[in-house]
């Protein structure tokens, strides 16, 4: 069964450094998302992406964050200057469609996550 994959599984970085988290969505999916989960807290939406554009972003997704689909398979989240409070598990997700008139093609499938630790 196709899966969303993420690399690395764990990233440790120093405060102020740039990090790039990578995701490979399911191949026929058109909508891509990033979420994060700070330890012990809710999963929070960061951004949705379709047709090489951001569809929606949350207040968390400020100028320090950016997303890119550099080729036909990868979807990346970049944090330009990491802060201690960016430490979290970051999940990538993808869906076949964003909204559907039938079937469950807007089901979001999540990757295993990248645990980011900022020291």
């Amino acid at each position, binding site marked *: 069964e196709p899966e969303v994959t993420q690399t690395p599984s764990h990233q440790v970085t120093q405060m102020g450094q740039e990090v790039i988290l990578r995701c490979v969505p399911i191949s026929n999916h058109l909508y891509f*998302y990033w979420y994060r989960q700070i330890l012990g807290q*809710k*999963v929070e*939406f960061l951004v949705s992406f379709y047709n090489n554009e951001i569809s929606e972003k949350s207040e968390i997704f400020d100028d320090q964050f950016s997303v890119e689909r550099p080729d036909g398979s990868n979807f990346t989240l970049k944090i330009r200057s990491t802060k201690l409070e960016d430490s979290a598990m970051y999940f990538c997700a993808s869906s076949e469609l964003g909204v559907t008139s039938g079937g469950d093609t*807007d089901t979001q*499938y*999540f990757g295993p996550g990248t645990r980011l630790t900022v020291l």
Partner: protein
Amino acid sequence: SQQGEEDPQALSIQEGENATMNCSYKTSINNLQWYRQNSGRGLVHLILIRSNEREKHSGRLRVTLDTSKKSSSLLITASRAADTASYFCATDAFNAGGTSYGKLTFGQGTILTVHP
């Protein structure tokens, strides 16, 4: 309360018993999705129920949706020790313009422990 709140926060049962988890939300939704998360791991999609559906089944899972009460429930029948995990509901709500871009809002989750 916030969008997508689960109840109870923790549930402890014996293997073979049924487990029921509830979720409440506040705004109009396109769909509601249930996920499972084993400790420190990724989110596994369980089931999606659309706003015009009232009940949906998948194996030992039964999900109901009451849009008039803005609530959903997840029933796991004949539970197994392997069902031990956190369970989250996530709502895909329409924005002010009546559009959905797939932004899921998650609740805090219910921690289910199934004792062998």
